């Protein structure tokens, strides 16, 4: 299931962690996330790490149960997840369950796949209370009663697809009884990945006012949970008290909050000395630093001051060598480590635009659009080599069991001649430098297709976020390639949030349905829906289906197979169908970030989930 959070790499990230997230066993496990940095010298205890947040991002929410307004790595991956661990945590190197960092053993499904039992570890919160099924019950109760305030609530899915839960506090386990059989991989990676145990210390409606918001007491949850949520939310709105409010000091992760400056511009975390995991922090302090712009961050990085982990703006990046790895590093004293994210990237076409929609409904036209994506050139010229090609419904890199050979072999790889042939053989006449026009309307072979009138020009708008140089370079080249076959595209820019507010799923009768094509400027991360079925994006009427693409055959596969049947066959079918149907214009996936890591920092890894694990980092002697 794809995400509904958009991110431009890590910058402007709008993705979520809850991260749990696992990948199917047997994933490729390629090293795209990067292996630990090889700082020379023995590790030393202590030291302070300052970590640059993506420009314009700073944490502003601490409660790990929040609405869509607070989705973003700065809140989730870089802040909450360090203090409040999700039930399941994904190893971003192997794309398998990270059993060390997770709060429970891998889930066990019954033979009918209608129930799943989860055995929790014997971990503790920092206030001494055990991390137990009661904490899960607290979370589930909130998820059931506060759907409007939970970013991940989707009608019919978790927790609505859970008929009941039986909690065995003595055995420290719980069993979810489901409404029907499920595909275990899908349920684990896309549903269990959402569970975020919450401490009983938060089950209050005011200081010292104990409440009873727990799924173990279904009768009480409807009346109690809203009061509890209102109190927690009110506390979470007081950002100036984040570091002093005792609520937020109850943690089960390796870190706790020491200070939180106004606006979250500087956040300091220190080790949680009660942390139950074995991956206890080596460093003594972890500081998140926010920046007003990439340029400001880069200036600080180059001036050789305080940053331990920063990033290189793409515009300043050297060309990546063809043999992989980072290019020559313009910043001395640091190692350049490209941070690859496992994600899809594509241009949306508006199938419901009353003017251009009939053309966009034509398969041959969409195939032509895909044939004209000169991905190798864009990767080299627009991203200086720091990107990977993307040809279909599952990312081409890294190689995973999800990826089919059909998609891997780029069925619509760059070919201008084929694109031109598709256009001219379907009733369009290319004349001069203007747009091609439909000269053979109709639905027969060699005609423009249903709904396309005679004289219709192949003329569209393509909007993308302002201020993104790489995207601009890429799309300008695309514009010129399209022009070669008579497709005239007018490029427009909008601020990203304005684009979010403008390019929405719509119906032809709506006045706002006049957008033609949209590139949101960055890849679509799966996080935390790690089973890559993309149902939230590709199925008819799905909330994240910006294009209003609708293929009933696809919906049948989703409903009857992907969510229900074990194995990858249905997923492969979905992926091939979406790719064959050229439902979206797939374009290269840029690296999430070009990280600069101080050369004396060891143990540093970059997760494909974009999560960070400063508890694994250490300085080497001489630092």
């Amino acid at each position: 299931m794809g995400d509904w959070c958009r991110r431009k790499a890590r910058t402007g990230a709008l993705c979520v962690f809850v991260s749990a997230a696992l990948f199917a066993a047997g994933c490729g496990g390629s090293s795209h996330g990067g292996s630990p940095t090889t700082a020379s010298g023995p590790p030393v205890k202590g030291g302070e790490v300052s970590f640059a947040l993506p420009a314009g991002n700073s944490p502003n929410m601490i409660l790990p149960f929040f609405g869509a307004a607070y989705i973003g790595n700065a809140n989730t991956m870089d802040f909450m997840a360090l203090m409040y661990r999700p039930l399941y945590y994904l190893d971003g190197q192997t794309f398998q369950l990270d059993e060390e960092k997770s709060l429970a053993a891998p889930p066990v499904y019954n033979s009918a796949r209608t129930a799943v039992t989860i055995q929790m570890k014997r971990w503790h919160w920092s206030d001494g209370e055990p991390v137990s099924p009661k904490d899960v019950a607290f979370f589930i109760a909130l998820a059931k009663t506060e759907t409007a305030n939970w970013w991940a609530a989707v009608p019919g899915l978790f927790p609505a697809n859970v008929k009941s839960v039986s909690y065995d506090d003595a055995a420290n386990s719980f069993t979810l009884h489901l409404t029907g059989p499920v595909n275990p991989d899908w349920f684990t990676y896309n549903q269990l990945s959402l569970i975020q145990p919450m401490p009983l210390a938060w089950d209050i409606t005011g200081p010292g006012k104990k409440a009873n918001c727990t799924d173990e007491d279904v009768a009480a949850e409807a009346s109690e949970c809203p009061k509890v949520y209102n109190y927690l939310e009110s506390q979470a709105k007081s950002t100036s008290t984040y570091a002093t409010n005792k609520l937020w000091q109850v943690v089960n992760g390796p870190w706790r909050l020491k200070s939180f400056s106004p606006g979250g511009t500087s956040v300091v975390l220190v080790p949680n000395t009660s942390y139950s995991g074995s991956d206890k922090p080596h460093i003594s302090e972890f500081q998140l630093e926010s920046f007003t712009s990439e340029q400001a961050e880069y200036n600080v990085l180059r001036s050789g001051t305080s940053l331990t982990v920063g990033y290189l703006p793409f515009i300043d990046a050297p060309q990546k060598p063809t043999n992989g790895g980072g290019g020559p590093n313009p910043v001395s004293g640091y190692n350049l480590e490209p941070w690859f994210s496992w994600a899809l990237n594509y241009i949306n076409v508006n199938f419901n635009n009353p003017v251009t929609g009939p053309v966009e409904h034509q398969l041959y036209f969409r195939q032509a659009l895909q044939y004209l994506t000169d991905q190798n050139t864009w990767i080299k010229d627009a991203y200086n080599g720091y990107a990977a090609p993307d040809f279909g419904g599952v990312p081409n890199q890294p190689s995973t069991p999800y990826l089919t050979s059909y998609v891997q072999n780029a069925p619509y790889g760059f070919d201008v001649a084929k694109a031109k042939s598709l256009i001219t053989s379907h009733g369009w006449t290319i004349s001069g430098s203007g747009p091609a026009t439909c000269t053979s309307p109709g639905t027969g072979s060699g005609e423009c297709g249903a709904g396309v009138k005679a004289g219709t020009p192949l003329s569209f708008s393509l909007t993308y976020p302002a201020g993104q140089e790489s995207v601009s370079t890429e799309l300008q080249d695309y514009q010129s390639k399209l022009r070669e076959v008579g497709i005239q595209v007018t490029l427009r820019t909008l601020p990203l949030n304005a684009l979010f507010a403008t390019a929405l799923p719509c119906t032809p009768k709506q006045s706002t349905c006049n957008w033609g094509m949209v590139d949101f400027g960055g890849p679509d991360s799966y996080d935390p829906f790690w089973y890559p079925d993309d149902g939230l994006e590709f199925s008819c009427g799905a909330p994240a289906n910006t294009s209003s693409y609708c293929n009933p055959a696809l919906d049948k596969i989703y409903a009857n197979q992907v969510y229900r049947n074990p194995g990858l066959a249905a997923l492969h079918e979905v992926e091939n169908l979406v790719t064959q149907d050229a439902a979206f214009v797939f374009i290269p996936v840029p690296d999430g970030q070009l990280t600069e890591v101080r050369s004396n920092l060891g143990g540093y890894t970059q997760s494909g989930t974009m999560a960070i694990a400063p508890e694994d980092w250490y300085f080497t002697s001489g630092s």
Partner: protein
Amino acid sequence: MTGYLLRRVVQAVFIVIVVTMIVFGLLQLLPGGPAHAVLGSRATPAAVAAFDKANGLDNPVYVQYGIWFSHLVQGNLGYSYNQNQSVISLIGERLPKTLALTITAVILAMVVGVTIGTVQAIRRNRAFDYAATSVGFLFYSFPPFFLALLLIILLAVDTHLLPAQAPQASSVWTVLSDPRALILPVVTLAVGGVAIFSRYMRSSVIDNLLQDYVRTARAKGVGSVRLLVVHVLRNALLPVVTLIGLFLPLLLSGAVVVESVFNYPGMGLLFWNAATSRDYPTELGVTVLAGVLTVVGSLVADILYAVLDPRVKYVSR
């Protein structure tokens, strides 16, 4: 004078109200609503509806404006979902920091600009005057972004003499207690002002030096220094003082570039980010503040003019 002041205050309040109405109306014309800007393009209709209801956006525009205005009167500028903070607290955090930076820059620009302009006038059409004029035009035409980068590369990246970012502390006093980190952003902001103030001052001092009262003073044996400081400067500063009053609103917005390059989140960036992220409450809050500062700045300029120039009297007609 009191009557004049009262009239101006009433006018100012009226102008600010009209400004808020215009801005409120213009925001409604933007395509897409704040819900999707905040929740993302993929928010479910239920989530959008919940957001609109929670923020009163499901009411007619005039009702929304009425609610917002009644809150404004009570000192409540609304709540920024983007920042998870009340707008008043956001402004409370950012405004002092921006003022610390920009007021320091204006003072520096004025001191240096007035001095240079005065010396230019005294030594007009000589080498120093030509050199200062040339440098002044250069400074005036320098884009602040370019100048900031140049200074950073020279003094922070290459020589490590100064920090590349402004003070990161949250309180004004701590910001001011780190003068090394303030040097580059203040200089970047001040350079353009030096050019403006020096040009104004030069021509104003030259005008005054040609006045009869100067000739009379000289004839009476007043010394050059006394003549300049006591007589000429007081009169020559008049246009500069009015300029300062008109600078007030610019203090809020003029620092956007410097705030961005020197990693100094202040009012300029607050408004810029609010505008690009459809953060309506913050946009309106900052607009009200800018409107108030504009009319107050204009009023202050008029009053100062009267104080400094006894010939100017504001009387009721």
